[in-house]
């Protein structure tokens, strides 16, 4: 399968360039940390309250940081005009998107899981017992954010005011990710944790719908 082998090579390239620079992961982690700390000043972060507001706060912080993290995704290809080289190199242009969205999902997931522990300590929430289930929710949520975010990053990189434009386009589109992720996380952090498959179902539906749309129409976005 040329698509998969192309994707694997490009994914390796994305991960390697991040491994060498550490730019995205460092800035995004610190950004989420700042948001979490600042949020704690807006209400009393006692344990009962944090179970109530915590998941929403956490996902909002993830969403904000994602809109920053996804910004350079296509922009960096534009600066040195490496996008045309990438297009020539792969047989299926969808591989470019697939590699970038896999890389973005990984970056998002790593920062989210890292910050989950910081959140758990700051807000006195027990997460270890439900960690695998939380990781599943985080994975499905991050994949939704990364799929739409990668596509919109390709859009915004072609426009003026791109720094403002990406969050503007991305945030309302991600309402069906924010609500299920928050609710599913909340259900897992309660005294009797439950894995809410109804919410996960919406997340899976979102991921499938947008991945298919990207597969069908994505290549047109890479045209010169």
């Amino acid at each position: 399968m040329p698509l998969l082998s192309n994707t694997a090579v490009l994914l390796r390239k994305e991960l390697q360039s991040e491994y060498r620079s550490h730019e995205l992961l460092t800035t995004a982690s610190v950004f989420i940390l700042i948001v979490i700390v600042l949020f704690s000043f807006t209400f009393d972060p006692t344990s009962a309250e944090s179970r109530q507001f915590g998941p929403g706060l956490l996902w909002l912080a993830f969403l904000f940081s994602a809109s920053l993290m996804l910004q350079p995704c296509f922009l960096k290809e534009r600066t040195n005009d490496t996008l045309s080289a990438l297009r020539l190199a792969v047989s299926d242009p969808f591989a470019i998107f697939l590699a970038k969205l896999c890389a973005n999902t990984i970056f998002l997931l790593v920062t989210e899981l890292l910050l989950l522990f910081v959140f758990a300590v700051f807000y006195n929430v027990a997460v270890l017992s439900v960690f695998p289930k939380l990781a599943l929710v985080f994975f499905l949520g991050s994949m939704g954010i990364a799929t739409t975010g990668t596509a919109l990053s390709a859009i915004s990189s072609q426009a003026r005011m791109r720094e403002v434009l990406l969050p503007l386009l991305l945030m309302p589109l991600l309402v069906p990710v924010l609500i299920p992720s928050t609710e599913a996380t909340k259900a897992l952090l309660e005294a009797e944790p439950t894995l809410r498959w109804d919410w996960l179902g919406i997340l899976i539906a979102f991921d499938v719908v947008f991945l298919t749309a990207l597969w069908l129409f994505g290549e047109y976005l890479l045209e010169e």
Partner: protein
Amino acid sequence: MAKTGIYTFIVCLLIGVTAYASFYVAPTESTMGLVQRIFYLHAPSGMTSLAAFLVSFIGSVAYILTRKPRWDWLAVSAAEVGVAFCTVVLLTGPIWAHPAWGVWWAWDARLTSTLVLWLLYVAFLILRTMIEDADRRALVSAFFGVFTFLDVPLVYGSIWWWRTQHPQPVVFTSAGLDPTMRKVFYLSWLSLTCLMALLIRQRYELEQSREELRTLEQELEAH
């Protein structure tokens, strides 16, 4: 030109008849009284805006597949008209909600999803202003138009699911809608749909004229 004039006249007439019917023909609702009459503008506007967004989606998909500028003109015209009708829904909603529910805004499923829908299409219109090149703008916004429309059922689904878990405001249920009320409602829906078609057509022609002007300017520069 004459055809547009006749069509505009018919639409104006329909709107006039609808306004008369909503105020004088439809009976006054027993519990909410006069304020319920805003329903004849509110609900059909909502349905009309959804129809306009559907037209915009069709325009976007057709543009991606055919690359004919006229589909892009249709997509942007319908999106703008849809946003206008959606704005009417969001403005008339609170006017009705305040006397009926006692609050200007309730985070009820339908209200919230309509607001998100409005935000999505406003973002679509803003995106269009940020790209200079006409072909690029058309392609990129067509792509975003497809994404936006695909998002609509998911937005409705997730918000509906989310709100039904929380206390609901006492909503006026239209289960036993009076037959006259129903007729006025359908009449209003018809006239607003005709108005939508007229507005989309006018906006489309504007886009066409802009394109013609652009071509002429380019020719002039070439000389």
